[in-house]
């Protein structure tokens, strides 16, 4: 190895050039705040997808007349399984990437894209199989009342019903935190910790799905607007301007107030947040594409006769995604935040932390209800903001000066 290949810091330049993602990830790993927030986000995701194993009145293992059964796995819906599989597949991405990197060549599709493709395929196949072939057993059985008779039954650690009946209401409503109820009980005798655990699902699904919808709209329209220009750009910019000018919260309030009550509230929130908050990614994507359009590799790709859709999808859009990633991270925090505000204004009734906080506000003396919900919202919003900050610092070239 010659001296010329050594850099000032002693690192040796060898092997294939580092990809942009690897550089950003390397920057991120140096930041403790980023690592901690990623850990907390994974933990929140785990709490969300494993919620039925953590709290509820459906036993994991049940013994009746000497027969062993696993009720919780029969009761979980297909959607729950699909979410669980998605979570595990995302966690397993680094492993698959390592596999591809070891066996792969230096050039061609990146290990990330290949691993992503394989996992997506597995996930879609699984989802299709589940929805086509499986009917969950959702019949309600009062397992908890027969707990004493069943030897060898395993219940979740917090074994209380999510929606308690009259007995619980009379005996246990607004009970202060104790050994039995670590975070106390709420208005109808419901365990607050169970509410927090299941609220994780609402918060994360609203965050991810709403941001996903708004990204799809924003990136798609932004790419079209920046690449084609002309009247398409003119019209799309006016439309975006209209959406930007009505303050977000006001527009959302107007839409939510007139959505019929028969619409499932969680989908109403997701849809409303998705279709009103796309302007940020639209502007970023448009600006990025305007910059990228003049680059040599785009001209080269066009000279090679690559069709426009492929050029946009493979060459232009991926190179403009970095700033949008930051926006998406903040967007998830913003969506959780907004959902809480909407529940607070009484515009939605989802099983969420916002609703808990709002209910708890009516009785300030039972502080454990609103304090728990508020703390959950704060932690979630904070870790996403921390991660967004860290990614922004990591991709900002000015910091490397």
């Amino acid at each position, binding site marked *: 190895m010659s001296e010329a290949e050594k850099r000032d810091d002693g690192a040796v330049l060898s092997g294939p050039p580092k990809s942009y993602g690897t550089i950003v990830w390397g920057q991120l790993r140096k930041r403790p*705040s980023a690592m901690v927030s990623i850990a907390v986000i994974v933990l929140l995701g785990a709490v969300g997808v494993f919620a039925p194993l953590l709290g509820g009145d459906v036993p994991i293992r049940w013994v009746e007349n000497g027969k062993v059964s696993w009720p919780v796995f029969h009761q979980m819906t297909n959607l729950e399984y699909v979410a669980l599989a998605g979570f595990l597949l995302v966690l397993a991405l680094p492993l698959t990437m390592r596999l591809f990197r070891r066996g792969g060549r230096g050039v061609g599709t990146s290990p990330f894209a290949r691993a992503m493709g394989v996992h997506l395929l597995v996930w879609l196949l699984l989802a299709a199989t589940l929805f086509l072939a499986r009917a969950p057993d959702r019949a309600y059985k009062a397992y908890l009342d027969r707990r004493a008779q069943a030897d060898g039954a395993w219940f979740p650690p917090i074994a209380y019903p999510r929606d308690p009946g009259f007995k619980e209401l009379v005996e246990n409503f607004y009970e202060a935190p104790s050994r039995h109820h670590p975070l106390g009980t709420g208005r109808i005798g419901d365990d607050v910790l169970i509410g927090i655990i299941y609220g994780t699902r609402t918060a994360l699904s609203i965050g991810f799905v709403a941001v996903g919808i708004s990204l799809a709209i924003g990136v798609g329209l932004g790419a079209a607007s920046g690449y084609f220009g002309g009247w398409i750009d003119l019209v799309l910019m*006016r*439309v975006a*301007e*209209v*959406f930007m*000018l*009505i*303050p*977000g*919260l*006001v*527009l959302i*309030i*107007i*839409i939510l*107030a*007139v*959505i*019929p*009550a*028969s619409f*499932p509230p969680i989908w109403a929130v997701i849809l409303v947040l998705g279709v009103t908050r796309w302007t940020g990614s639209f502007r970023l994507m448009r600006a990025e594409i305007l910059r990228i359009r003049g680059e040599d590799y785009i001209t080269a790709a066009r000279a090679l006769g690559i069709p426009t859709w492929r050029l946009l999808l493979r060459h232009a859009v991926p190179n403009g995604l970095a700033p949008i990633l930051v926006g998406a991270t903040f967007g998830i*925090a913003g969506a959780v*935040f907004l959902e*809480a*505000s909407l529940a*607070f*204004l009484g*515009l939605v009734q989802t099983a969420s932390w*916002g609703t808990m*906080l*709002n209910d*708890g*506000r009516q009785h*300030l*003396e039972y*502080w454990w209800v*609103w304090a728990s919900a*508020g703390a959950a*919202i*704060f932690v979630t*919003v*904070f870790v996403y*903001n*921390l991660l967004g*900050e860290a990614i922004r610092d990591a991709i900002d070239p*000015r910091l490397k*000066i």
Partner: protein
Amino acid sequence: MKTYLAKRLLLMVPTLLGMTFLTYAIVRLSPGEPIEAWIRAQTGGMDPVSTFQQAEKIRARLGLKDHNYWGDDVETHLETLEKGGDAAKGRAAAELERITGKTFARDIDSWKRWWDANRADFEKTLIDPLEKALNVFHGYGTWVAHAVRGDLGKSIKFETSITFRTPDGGQSPSGNPFWLFAERVPVTLTLNVIAELLIFLIAIPVGLTAARYRGRLFDRTSTFLLLALWSIPAILMGTLFIALLCRGGQGLEWFPVSGLHSDDADKLGWGAYLADLLWHATLPVVCLVYGGLAYLAKLGRASLLENLRADFVRTARAKGLPERRVVYHHALRNSLLPMITTMVMILPAMIGGSVIVESLFSIRGMGLLVVDGAKAHDIPVIMFGTVLYGFLTLVALLGGDVLYAWADPRVRYE
């Protein structure tokens, strides 16, 4: 510059039209017409047939030739009740009971019998989607035609404004959205302008210190703490304040919990009146300030860092100016520019977001008016609110640009 201003002002017109059309379409295409919503709110669940006749009477009186969309709703809900999933069935039954006042719960046969018997009354309300969409265009055209002549319609929910009276001592024109908003806009504006000034005053020294000692302890802690503050939802902060600091809460009883004035505020002298106002406004303003602080301090830090690295600062240092002078006269002045522009531009967003604080502390501001109006399908109030918000935002954007050009001679608009 004049041409530029004229062009910008003219461009406001299509944007405002687009905004108002979007809002109008959203409100009108939703099921449940405003007049019925109003009658329902007045009487609770009552017989739909008589509600329908009553609505017809009101329409005739107001000179409206409008359609009633209930027929559509009933049919949709019946279908859901028959074929939908368990949760959807429950919701459909609840909606049917709310619309009709009957209590058949999930008994689909009873509902069908009732619908067959009463269907004739709804026949004319069953209109096809195309006609519904055309109605939106027609209705919007009517609204615009009236609005440009100064006729903003009458609020359905709000009868009169409290503050404004006509010069002869009578009440202001009943339910005119303009007067309803005229009463409430100053409240919201005052709160937000005070909050903005405070944000500015705190963000500058914080950003300045963080930039000067970049990477040191103050920089890192302030960035972290501001981000944490930013992540606290206003509802949680407000609830904590009310629980710990307000009368009737659990802790210190230092502040009043609702409104902007004491009951006897009218009798106070102006000094006491102002003190009373400040006392009431403290907590709401704090709630508005802490969130925006992080954003502006970060912006100030970034722009100062950039300026401290610039050539003119190096020149200033090279010619031997004291460090204080370099920082305050050369770097800071140039950094204030983007901060001021951003302040002006984020004001509309803050005003939009202040509805939470208004609701927390029961302040009669414009945010609450729009929320209440939206809940009641009160089209005149919603539409005028949209126009007002849009106009405020457009003016703020224009103001930001003009300010930028005025402060920075390099910027020229043609």
